[in-house]
Each structure stands twice: as structure tokens, then as C-alpha cells.
């Protein structure tokens, strides 16, 4: 097996999972051995400022969230293209940089459109 950088990452992943699970397991062990769990209809009900919860929390949300998610997605994808450009930037010509600028401006145009439409204003 070659010395792979991902091996360390995987080890860290396993370590982190263990780090998370260990105390939870320990807490469960403690609960089993000393402090018994005592669930109850009231105790395990949803908390709502001391009242009984009415209605479901899983309801339909405002589409405004979705608009932001779309814009975010677009810019996330844009970042994917920007990153290699940025890394290569020191070796690039002005022309290439301008090409990127055009790419950027296209997206900025979308942003400005959204701005103009009042989409970026949280309702």
C-alpha cells in the first residue's frame, strides 16, 4: 500500500467518529449501570415553552429559503471554476484573466438581476 495522504484522513475520520461515540457510549453505560433512563409521556414530549405542543413542526416552509439555495449553488459551482483559475493565476496572461473576468461578470449579472428583482431581500 503506497503512502497515501488519504490514509491519514481516514484515520482521522475513524478517530473523530470514535471521539464522538466514546462519550455517548460511556454515557449510556453510566445510565445502564447507575442512573436508569426514565422516559415518560410528558418528559419525552416536544418542548414548547412549557405548553403542550400543538400542530406538527414538519410543515411547509417559505420558498424564500429555496431562492437563496439556488443562488448559493450557482456560486458554489462558480467557485469550482474559480479555484483552478486562481491557482494558475500567477502564470496566466492578461487575456486569460480577462476571460475569467467575463465568466465572473456573467454571474455577477445574474446576481445583479436577482438584486434588482428584490430577490436578495429576505421577506
Amino acid at each position, binding site marked *: 500500500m503506497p503512502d497515501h495522504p488519504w490514509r491519514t484522513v481516514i484515520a482521522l475520520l475513524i478517530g473523530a467518529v470514535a471521539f464522538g461515540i466514546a462519550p455517548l457510549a460511556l454515557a449510556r453505560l453510566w445510565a445502564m449501570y447507575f442512573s436508569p433512563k426514565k422516559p415518560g409521556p410528558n418528559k419525552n414530549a416536544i418542548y*414548547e*415553552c*412549557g*405548553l403542550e405542543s*400543538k*400542530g406538527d*413542526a414538519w*410543515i*411547509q*416552509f*417559505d*420558498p*424564500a429559503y429555496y431562492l437563496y439555495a439556488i443562488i448559493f449553488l450557482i456560486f458554489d459551482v462558480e467557485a469550482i471554476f474559480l479555484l483552478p483559475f486562481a491557482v494558475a493565476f500567477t502564470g496566466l496572461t492578461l487575456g486569460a484573466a480577462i476571460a475569467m473576468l467575463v465568466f465572473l461578470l456573467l454571474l455577477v449579472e445574474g446576481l445583479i438581476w436577482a438584486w434588482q428583482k428584490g430577490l436578495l431581500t*429576505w*421577506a
Partner: protein
Amino acid sequence: MSRDLMMDATGNDERLAPTYGAGQHRLKAERESQILEVSIGPQHPSTHGVFRMDVKLDGERVVQLKPVFGYLHRNHEKIAENGSYLAAIPYTDRLDYLCSMTNNWGYTLAVETLAGITVPERAEYIRVIMAELTRFQNHAGLVGFLLQDMGASGTPLMYAFREREKILDLFEAVSGARMMCNYLRFGGVRVDCTPEWMKETRELVGVLPRFVDEFERLLRGNEILMARTQGVGVLPRELAVNAGVTGPMLRATGVNYDIRKVDRYGIYDRFKFRVPLGEHGDVYDRYMMRVLEMRESISILEQALKEIPEGPVQDPKTKLRGLRPKAGEAYGRIESPKGELGFYLISDGTMNPYRYRVRSPCLINLTILEDMCLGQSVADVVVTLGSVDIVMGEVDR
């Protein structure tokens, strides 16, 4: 005729209260997302006690808000009707538990009106000093709580309470208790202030402006504060008057109505002080009213401490125990830090008041909470509520 009027109570008759039912109109509008019903309170970090608001949310926007009271309804009125006139005083302490002194004053003023009792001059001065100290600490605390509601992790509140403790020390030194002073009596005050106390008070009043300055440096011009409060929870002037809103909240809408000036009760006509007025009636104005009133309170305190005469502090003719006013009724009101605090007493000639009623500014200032909050976000509701300055002890009594 009047039946028709009643039928039209929802707003067709233009002479009637104009804005009622705005919430229902909003709700009818077709919403795409679902309405989330949340109850904020009675246990909630920023309902200032056990207040509850049944809120309907569209996304983050409030489309309906119904205040629910009574979680601190302690039957103050019933208890006072079963006790003597004197026994009601310690209970008034617990109405607006941040301002026991002004509550005392409101009640004693009503009893004095009912029974025709006069108050010695020195006692009047002491009352003014106590009331303005109370006003100062109440406003400082309120501003702190308001900022706390805005999420300022306690720092302004801590500074406010730092000063409040100093004022409470004074209260304790003269009355024996920090909060529940039980200090005023009809016909005067319970005990006289010592010269040392006067000295300490003068020293404290000397440093209080420093606190206001510090507060202003901390928050004046803070962009987040301004953005959070300006244009939020706007209360139109006409509605404020019609809904009986009083106190700094009313003055933030620009209505010049300060009972200290209007009724000139006590000896308030002897002091020079200004009444700050707002323009927009939003949360920022309400906040600034408090800050400016703190400065005015300091000015009144300075004058009162300078001019206070020597003399008795209790009208010797007044019978504290077993007071039996003539049958009749009286309404006495003062400008408490929160607004018009009124006491309505009916005497039937016995030792107990026949009817004892507290006109609490907090409850009535809450009438228009829904109107101020509709269309705003939950965060605004919290801030708007914070700027109303309620104390549940007084709302529910």
C-alpha cells in the same frame, strides 16, 4: 342605532377605533407556505416573565399574534379589598416589582385624594427623589433587557444592573429592603432620610451621568442596534392615543403627555425638566426616550437634592392604622416609569376598600402589541415587546 354601531365595530364606521382587526385581514391573504403556530412563552427567555404570545408565522413573518395573560395573576385586587388600606401598600410593591417606590406613590396618592390627606413638604421631596431614582434604574434596566433581547450577551444589562445595585443600596439604606421598599405612607413617608443618606445620594447622582455616557458610547451609533430598531414596531400616533398607551412609549410617538407635567402631582411643578418626544414611534425612539429621560431624571434629582427642606416627613393627623375614609371614590394617577399608573378606590366607609383597582400601564400598553408586530419577524416581536417595557406583576396583577 347603537346596535348598528356595534355591528359595524369591525371598522365600517369611520368614527370607531380604526385599526382593529388588522391581524384577521392579513391572515385571509392566500399564503403559499404553511402557517406555523408557535407559542412564545410562558417560559421563554425574552418574554420578561410569564407572558405568552400565540404567534402564527409565515416563514419568519408574523401574521397573527395573540397575547395570553394571567400566568402571574396574583389576585392583588381581591387581596387588597380584603385587607386594610395600610396592608395594601406592601402589595403594591409587588405590582411592578422593579419600581416599588412609584407604585407606593400611586397608591398613596389615590388614598390621599380619597381621604383628603396632606403631605408634608419634605416628604414630597423625598418622594420625588425616590421616584426619580426608581425611574432611572427602571429605564437603565429596561434598556439593558432590550439589548439582551437583541442578543447582546448581557453586557449592557450588566452595566445597567451595576448602577441599579447602587440605587438599590440607597433604597435599602433608607427603607430596609432592596426591591420591596414599602416606604411611602399616605400622609408622608415611613422614616426620614439621614443626612449621610442624602450625602451618599448626592454623590451617586453626581456619577450617574457617567453611566449614561458610558452607555451611550457603548451603543449610540451602533449600526446593528440602529438597524435592528429603527422602523421596527412602529406605533402610529392616533392609534397610540386611542389605545391609551402612556409613558415613554406614548411620547416616542410624539404626543406630549407626561402626567408629571399635566397633573403636576406632588411638587413636580417646582422642577425644571424637559419631556423628550419621539418622531417615528418605533423601537429606537422608545429606546432613546428612556435614555433621554434618564438624563432628565438626573436633573430633577439634582434640583430636589439641592432644595429639600427640613421638617416632618409624616402628616401627624393621618391615621395609618385603621384608616376609614368617607364613603366615595377616587382615582389617583402618577407617571410611573412605564406610563400612567392609576389606582381607583371606592370606599364604603369601612376599614377595607370596597373596590380597589389598579390601572396598570403595562397591560394597556400591550393592547397594540399585535398591531405593532404584524408583518414583522419573530426577532422584531421580541424587540418590540422588550421596548414596551412590561412587568408581568403589573400586567396580570
